[in-house]
């Protein structure tokens, strides 16, 4: 059981179930918020509970009270679709306005929301490099520099002693870090899926591990070169 870890020469801490706290930058990192996912489905007749944005933003606000970060960086797929910003209901919008006012809020844009207008505050970037670590939505093959990304929604899924344990998780290699989805209604992709190991773009001798958050600290699991959990 470990509290914090090193990546790209920097110290990080897993914050809550799906966020990272970057001490040197005093930044909270989240990914794949998929705000207004429920209303995107409602458009097509699936009336999912219209509380996902509020729930997601309240969870971020709770982490803010704990860490009081200067920056919040959201690594793309911030809104479930391009119109999501327009659909944001009053209560959720008010929360977001507070958050973007009280912190230096950075939107990295993703494949779901190719643009963010900044209507509710914050600044938008395609990608951003801080202290030599590149922050982008989807892992880029062939980039030799340390990188933190999202997009794949990795999830740990194992039967342990006859009980199915499912939980969002982080994927970490010496150069790449893939964050889980933070949004309240975002599902996950099995961390053993081949798409994830491909995105890790492993060089010779590099290992991959899944970091699974627990109530305090996290558990580490090694992944094979094929992406399956080492047994």
């Amino acid at each position, binding site marked *: 059981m470990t509290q914090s870890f090193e990546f790209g020469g920097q110290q990080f801490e897993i914050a809550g179930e799906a966020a990272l706290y970057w001490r040197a930058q005093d930044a909270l990192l989240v990914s794949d918020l998929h705000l207004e996912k429920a209303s995107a489905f409602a458009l097509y007749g699936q009336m999912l*509970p219209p509380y996902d944005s509020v729930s997601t933003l309240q969870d971020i606000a709770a982490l803010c009270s704990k860490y009081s970060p200067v920056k919040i960086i959201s690594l793309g797929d911030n809104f479930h679709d391009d119109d999501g910003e327009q659909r944001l209901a009053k209560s959720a919008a008010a929360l977001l306005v507070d958050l973007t006012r009280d912190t230096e809020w950075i939107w990295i844009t993703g494949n779901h929301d190719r643009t963010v207008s900044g209507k509710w505050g914050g600044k938008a970037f395609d990608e951003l490099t801080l202290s030599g670590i590149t922050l982008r939505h989807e892992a880029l093959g062939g980039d030799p520099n340390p990188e933190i990304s999202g997009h794949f929604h990795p999830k740990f899924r194992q039967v342990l002693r006859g009980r199915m344990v499912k939980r969002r998780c982080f994927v970490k290699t010496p150069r790449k870090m893939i964050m889980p989805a933070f949004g309240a209604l975002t599902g996950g992709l099995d961390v053993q899926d081949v798409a994830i190991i491909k995105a890790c773009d492993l060089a010779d001798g590099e290992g991959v591990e899944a970091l699974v958050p627990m109530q305090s600290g996290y558990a580490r699991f090694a992944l094979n070169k094929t992406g399956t959990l080492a047994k």
Partner: protein
Amino acid sequence: MHLSDPDPKPIVNLPPIILDWFAARGWQPRRHQLEMIEAARDGRHALLVAATGAGKTLAGFLPSLKDLIDAPSDGLHTLYISPLKALATDVRRNLLIPIEEMGLPIRVEARTGDTPSDRKARQRVKPPHILLTTPESLSLLLSHEDSVHMLATLKRVIVDEVHAFANGKRGDLLSLSLARLQTLAPKLQRVALSATVADPDDYRAWLAPYGDMDQVRLVEGETAAAPDLTILLPEGRVPWAGHSGHHAIPQLMDEIGRNKITLIFCNTRFLAEFIFQKLWDANEQKFAIGIHHGSLSVEARRKVEGAMAEGKLRALVCTASLDLGVDWGNVDCVIQMGAPKGSSRLLQRIGRSNHRMDEPSKAILVPGNRFEYLEAQAAFDAVTEGVRDGETFRPGSYDVLAQHVMGLACAGPFDEAELLAEIQSALPYSGVDAASFARVIAFIATGGYALKAYDRFKKLVKDPDGRWRLSHPQFAAQHRFNAGIIVDAPMLEIRFRNGRKLGKVEETFAATLSPGNCFTFAGMALEVESIKDLDLIVRAATKPANNIPSYMGARLPLTTHLAGRVRQMLTDRPGWARFPDEVREWLEMQAYRSQIPKAGQLLVETFPHDKRYYMVAYPFEGWNAHQSLGMLITRRMESRGLMPMGFVASDYALGVWSLKPITDPRPLFSADILADEFVDWVEQSYLLKRAFREVAVISGLVERQHPGKRKTGRQVTFSTDLIYDVLRKYEPDHLLLEAAWADARARLTDVGRLGDLLDRAADTMLHVDLERVSPLAVPLLVMIGRESVAQGSVDDALLMEAESLASIAMTP
């Protein structure tokens, strides 16, 4: 077949063509067949209760045939509804033969999920005289605008095997459809066919408009000969534990050899695979033995059913998948592996053999342990006395109502008050008031949330004339695609690389497999090649398989009726004389070392064992209730500092162990546990999430996953668990949470029986403090399936344990 009934024959005029047909076969119409015609002539609804083999199906159809002969007409005359798709096809054959032999110009067609859509469309324009269908297909038919015209001519509706589904969600759906049919064809006669049930009045009320059972005439068939039932003791021994009865395999082989065709019923799919395997290992005579259960692919099941129909098999190992339906007249022996769990189900299974009324059916019970022996004996007595289990009817579910109302909206605009009056005529929904109905409509229209976020996206809108209608025809297509009542656990399809499908396993089981692992399925040893998306690709295994898939499914609980009998048998000491020596000595030892509870007493024993303190209670209320009780009691023990470690539940008893002794069990069994600990526990447990998943799919909140229509690449399927979490946090009073709660209470926790148990616990408890484990407690304590008590977060503990394994594995 001759009429041996002394009752005066009812006076009805059968058309000569029907009488001639009976005569040509050397038959006479039976009394109940004539009474069904009489009921139809008198314009009455009718419930026919008769044993299998009594000519029930023909009795249901005869009035329709008579009607169509006496007054030939165009248009749909009769709807026949069966709970099984395969049965509808089977009956089609059985009905078509008389029609053909009588040379009647009557058109009969089937309409199920397998019927091509062009034929379905044609049926709505040019309907047959008799349409054979299922509750789900009927519901879908009602969602088409042109069905109104098609169904206006309907005279009779026949519901077959009504005992098998009336009190569940499919029964809810059908009761709503019947109400609709009655509106479209006001003179419609409702007919239901049922196996023998404990209380036919329950079913008369269910069938009748407004629950008015006096409108439904009860017609009873002749009673079948009492079955020839025996209890088989494995090599004369009754094991302490286990459920499988697999020690009896050599004797089973003897029975298979002795009979023409043997059906072997198992209570779970897991057990069916296990027994099949054991039989095959012992099959020196090379008998043709097959396997049949609900997770095999349709192709595999049809193949086995075909082999049975042609008489190619000597034995078939099966599960509840064969409780109903397909009649194979040549089965001459039925074997029940493990405990029968209820007398009605057992009778139904016995009825699968020998369909001649005048000869006894042969059936053998194979109990797996000593308690199961008592249960088998109780079932034996019940069957001998002809006593059935009572059925519980509960109010209709809101998720089914939402599906029905959406279906009707697809057929055309409706008036809210008129539709409410119609659905109130269905007994399960008679208690729905205007406010609740408005909630259901709001749910369909916008999700029914307090936060009116989706008013712009309404699925239903109100016309200027005040009627509700669909806002876009696209929603009708969506509804028809997703409608249905059966919601499976997430499953993976097992197939060979060449595409041949074998069946399905649950995701939870598949998650334990990796390439190279072997398991047994459909009686074959299979090796996992790869797991892709929702497919489990396999090949024939080259090494032995030691793993069999298990399925969550609903566990069949011991019925209240049989539980009462087992309790009674324990207290009746002179009655022990007929038990095998081992069982009798076991009970006598219990009386000597501990106590045997008197009638109405709840025995609770406490004793130290293996450095822990045990408490074992014997309520006989079924696994579900005991499992729930175990969860609740250990919570309470924890808050009282008794340091519980774990518990184990069976259909008969509950055992709990802790680090500190329980000196007085009474406070642990007090009824307030249902108020204080219950809600808290259910909300956090997987039970409510499982129930929520089902209501979310049935009500149309989330779309079903259809095989072949998978999203590619990233998994975008919806986890209803996430929706549940958000909803519980922000709108705990939502209609669907209410519906999930109702399901969890009724089906998953058996809270009714738990409540009864706790109500009488305080007054009837017989607490015996012992120095060591009692004989009665042994079968429970050697059971597998123990639960450890959640200390803090179980998942975290499991992760930490697994992590350390992973690190060890990584160290060179």
